[in-house]
């Protein structure tokens, strides 16, 4: 069992190792683009800055490719070269059906699994040459495509509409409960369907004159990357040198309100990281909501400060949320630290 989990982690890490340059490159380009344009009532306003818009588009492309690359190379790690096609398709479709990075992780694992099964199918030697270039890619892509579009995509679409109805019905009720829910949703999948549902709800409420929903979201959006970045600085010994570097990149992305900056941490260690960033974002959104923070721009993080009402409370909400995330994740990591693994001869 432990052996199987170790293998699973290794496959996830292989996928992450190929996706990291895409996240870093896309994140930094998007961050620079957003940082230098004015924040208008509809978010960052690119109408006067064609060059920055170009930078944003290129960065967004790197971000969009991140999901296929992540899923593709998880599948590649499991099944080798024949696994790439189904993995890439699964990851791309995960973006299309808005299943986000958790969907891509799942797609990569499923694709690798189906391809390794297909590789074991006994075939006559006349069929053998076309197996890796024709039969396996087609069969595995059909399988993963149907799963992503028909099995994963449909419930996600229903879930998103159900969740936005739920949020709508709660918007007149207890605002603290609503804020906690929004914070948890924002952090849970870092840019995936649950995050987007909360974000679009907040953005839609701006149009109806309710700025506090977006205010709560905006504070929650940045604490996952900021918190993970701070965590690597607070207890250096708990993190590898590479994680320190990823932490600095996460801090930069957090400042600009890009929740995806926490993905490298969450993808390699989801069970310990996701609960901690959820806790931190809930803290930030709740403080922001209780203090009546309002946000005119459909974007989050310290970067939108000019568009925020009750700025001091907004900064406090972000700081407290960030610290809660960092302390929680370091505590969990320290308490569950595994004994140094020993090598085995295979």
């Amino acid at each position, binding site marked *: 069992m432990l052996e199987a989990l170790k293998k699973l982690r290794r496959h996830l890490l292989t996928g992450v190792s190929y996706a*990291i340059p895409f996240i870093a490159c896309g994140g930094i380009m998007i961050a620079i683009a957003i940082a230098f344009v004015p924040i208008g009532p509809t978010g960052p306003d690119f109408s006067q800055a064609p060059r920055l818009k170009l930078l944003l588009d290129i960065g967004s492309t790197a971000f969009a490719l991140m999901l296929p690359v992540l899923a593709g190379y998880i599948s590649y*790690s499991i099944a080798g070269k024949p696994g790439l096609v189904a993995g890439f398709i699964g990851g791309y479709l995960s973006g299309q059906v808005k299943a986000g990075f958790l969907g891509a992780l799942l797609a990569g694992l499923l694709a690798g699994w189906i391809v390794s099964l297909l590789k074991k199918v006994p075939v006559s030697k006349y069929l053998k040459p076309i197996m890796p270039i024709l039969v396996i890619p087609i069969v595995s892509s059909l399988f993963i495509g149907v799963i992503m579009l028909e099995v994963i995509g449909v419930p996600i679409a229903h879930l998103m509409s159900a969740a936005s109805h739920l949020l709508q019905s709660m918007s007149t009720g207890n605002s603290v409960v609503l804020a906690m829910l929004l914070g948890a949703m924002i952090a849970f999948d870092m840019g995936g369907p649950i995050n987007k549902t909360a974000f679009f709800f907040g953005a839609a409420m701006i149009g109806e004159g309710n700025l506090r929903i977006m205010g709560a979201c905006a504070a929650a959006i940045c604490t996952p990357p900021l918190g993970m970045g701070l965590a690597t600085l607070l207890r250096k010994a708990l993190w*590898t*040198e*590479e994680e320190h570097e990823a932490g600095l990149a996460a801090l930069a992305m957090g400042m600009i309100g890009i929740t995806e900056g926490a993905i490298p941490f969450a993808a390699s260690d989801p069970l310990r990281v996701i609960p901690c960033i959820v806790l931190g974002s809930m803290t930030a959104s709740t403080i922001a909501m209780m203090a009546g923070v309002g946000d005119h721009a459909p974007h989050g993080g310290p970067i939108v400060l000019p568009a925020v009402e009750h700025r001091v409370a907004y900064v406090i909400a972000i700081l407290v949320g960030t610290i809660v995330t960092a302390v929680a994740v370091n505590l969990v990591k320290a308490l569950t630290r595994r004994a*140094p693994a020993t*090598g085995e001869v295979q």
Partner: protein
Amino acid sequence: MKVVAVTACTTGIAHTYMAAEQLEKTAQALGHEIKVETQGAMGIENELSDADIAAAQGVIFAADIEVERRERFDHVRVLEVPLQEAIKNPKGVFAKLGA
């Protein structure tokens, strides 16, 4: 004895090369001949040829991720250790190899 090794880490910019250096230093100190292939963010460097692998009496993988082009090692015994071990305790890695 002749040893070949592959090192690979997740980000592929620091630890891959630190592990390679440790293994090389330790091999030299213990009087072994070693060639280390690194699989970092730049891809495969100092690639091990089939002849290198066939001539080796010991094969070490110090990797946190899947080793690329693994089929080259299908017919040899491989000692797999976590990357950290090659950095922190390279002597122990060689001891496990029986070297």
